[in-house]
């Protein structure tokens, strides 16, 4: 490692990027990163740099997500896939505990201590780091932390890449969460045509940098990186009508817009599945066929389902109007009381993955434009 101002980082030539993966692998991490599969960008195990989506662009618009290939060589020239960090930590389905019935009918409960493998995620976006911060607060920074989430989180190494190619659905600049990553990473990269500016954000990040053949950063490289992230902010067309919409939304619970959006919304729950901050899960019991043991699972749930608000024969939110209103008033309102900020990080996934293209910025904007 060269002597240089740590805050300003180092230059890692493009042909040496494989050494970063090798260094992380050498430290015991399984490297996970973006790769193209089934016409989508998914986060999966990286066997090598060849798995990364070189020359891939993604066109996103309400209700649409298309992977396109060009002649470019950049690895991170796309906005995001439908999922990034959330499934790695808040598992879509996992066993919480199990129970076995003994010979005298006694119940023997047991749970396994989580022992997750170390995972390094390559190519984390600023929006997803902001979402991770919120999920950490929800699952870890509470009086009864979640054991599985906490254990996996402790084993996570995060390599962020500042975003230079937001999709048309992105609005992280409006929520203040991107396109540049400002905190919460071990390493952050700026991708240039011939390589990467790399900056450590943790002691662990410093240790990994020490293993790489780094060069000083030139003023031109630094300027190019700054201009690229500034342009990525400027190009975003969508925005929420404010950072804190709690009072606006709760003052408009009977606004006609809720009915209007309910006529389009299918109540399918795609938005909550792709949302990087949505945390709802249901618990369910699965008895073994011999009826002598059972596993108690949790799996992702959605406030768009009927069962979500069921209590003893009664459903609190029986129709789509009430469910969409619950989702939006919580996401953009209730979160401020619960976690001190909005639950939206501007990733735009709920817009692209909504089968009918409902746009959260448009719905919030409609209420802001004609409040009661």
């Amino acid at each position, binding site marked *: 490692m060269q002597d240089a101002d740590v805050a300003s980082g180092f230059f890692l030539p493009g042909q040496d990027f494989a050494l970063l993966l090798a260094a992380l692998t050498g430290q015991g991490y399984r490297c996970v990163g973006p790769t193209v599969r089934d016409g989508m960008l998914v986060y999966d195990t990286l066997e090598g740099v060849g798995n990364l989506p070189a020359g891939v662009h993604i066109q996103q618009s309400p209700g649409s997500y298309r992977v396109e290939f060009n002649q470019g060589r950049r690895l991170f020239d796309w906005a995001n896939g439908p999922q990034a960090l959330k499934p790695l930590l808040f598992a879509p389905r996992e066993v*919480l*505990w199990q*129970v076995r*019935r003994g010979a005298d*009918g*006694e*119940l*023997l*409960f047991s*749970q396994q201590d989580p022992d997750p493998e170390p995972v390094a995620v390559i190519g984390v976006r600023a929006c997803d780091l902001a979402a991770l911060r919120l999920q950490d607060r*929800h*699952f870890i920074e*509470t*009086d*009864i932390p*979640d*054991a599985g989430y906490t254990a996996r989180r402790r084993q996570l190494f995060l390599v962020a890449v500042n975003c230079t190619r937001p999709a048309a659905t992105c609005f992280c600049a409006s929520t203040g969460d991107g396109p540049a990553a400002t905190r919460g990473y071990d390493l952050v990269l700026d991708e240039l045509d011939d390589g990467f500016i790399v900056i450590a954000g943790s002691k662990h990040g410093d240790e990994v940098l020490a293993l790489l053949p780094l060069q000083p950063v030139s003023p031109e490289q630094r300027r190019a990186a700054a201009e690229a992230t500034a342009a990525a902010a400027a190009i975003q067309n969508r925005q929420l009508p404010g950072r804190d919409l709690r009072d606006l939304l*709760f003052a408009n*619970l009977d606004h006609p817009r809720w009915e209007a959006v309910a006529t389009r919304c299918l109540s399918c729950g795609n938005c909550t599945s792709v949302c990087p901050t949505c*945390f*709802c*899960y*249901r*618990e*369910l*019991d699965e*008895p073994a066929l011999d*009826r002598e043991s*059972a596993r*108690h699972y*949790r799996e992702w*749930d959605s*406030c768009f389902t009927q*069962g*979500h*608000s*069921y*209590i*003893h*024969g009664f459903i*609190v*939110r029986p129709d789509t*109007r*009430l469910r969409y*209103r*619950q989702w939006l*008033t*919580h996401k953009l*309102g*209730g*979160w*401020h*009381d*619960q976690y001190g900020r909005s639950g939206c990080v501007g990733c735009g996934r709920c817009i692209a993955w909504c089968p009918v293209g409902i746009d959260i910025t448009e719905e919030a904007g409609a209420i802001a434009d004609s409040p009661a």
Partner: protein
Amino acid sequence: MTIASHFPYEAEVIERCQESPTIFSLVVRLTDPVVASEYRFTPGQFNMLYLFGVGEIPISIVSDPARPGQLIHTIRDVGRVSHGFSQLEVGDRIGLRGPFGSGWPLVQLEGQDIMIVTGGLGCAPVVSVINYILRRRERYGRLVILQGVKHSSDLIWRERYAEWEKLDNTQVLLAADVGGKPWPGFVGPITVLFEHARFNPQQTVAMMCGPERMIHAAADLLIERGMQPWDIWISMERNMQCAVGQCGHCQFGSSFVCRNGPVYRYPDAGELLAKRGF
């Protein structure tokens, strides 16, 4: 050691009582002696009860906190899990974790007059309060119990109400939307009872549970009579699965009912109370 976490502990049914055609009580004890000796709760709190191979439900604890070795849960046979619980017999084993949530402020209310208002079948959380106060009658002032039910046959523990009525400085008023014979109470919504309740609104603290519309209407009447809004406490119900404020089902506005509730001061429940969809 606390068992108010994600992980259940074994408990044994030591008594079962059919309270009405659809309501029954299970008395259970934690089987691990260390866990049992350290278990403490406050009336108003609830346990997550697990039925083997079926699932969990939140059930409020109606027994006395001075006897944590015998936990009484009164359950209505209404769903998949509660129906399974209704089939249990003495000696059967279940899972239990808890207690969760906020309880009634019974210690801080000593010396005060108390009014209990319950509607429908949601009386279990406040029955624990009535029992608690009656066992410590000298520590509290006047006690007024208002109970409303849909149909007169829905009233469980009728003989207990008759006994309570005979106590000094205690008033019991019953109302049924639909009266039957013989029905000792009034016919109509619970709010008709307030005209007959004898209490000093400045010295009385109200504790309520039941349908939210009823709570809302009753609280408005009490405030109209001069009771301070923060002297009204309510218990709420929502879908609860994790009971530790994580699974999201019980969210009520910005509140997690399992953690911030289920017992709230009336003003803390806020404007969303009885608002359809929250």
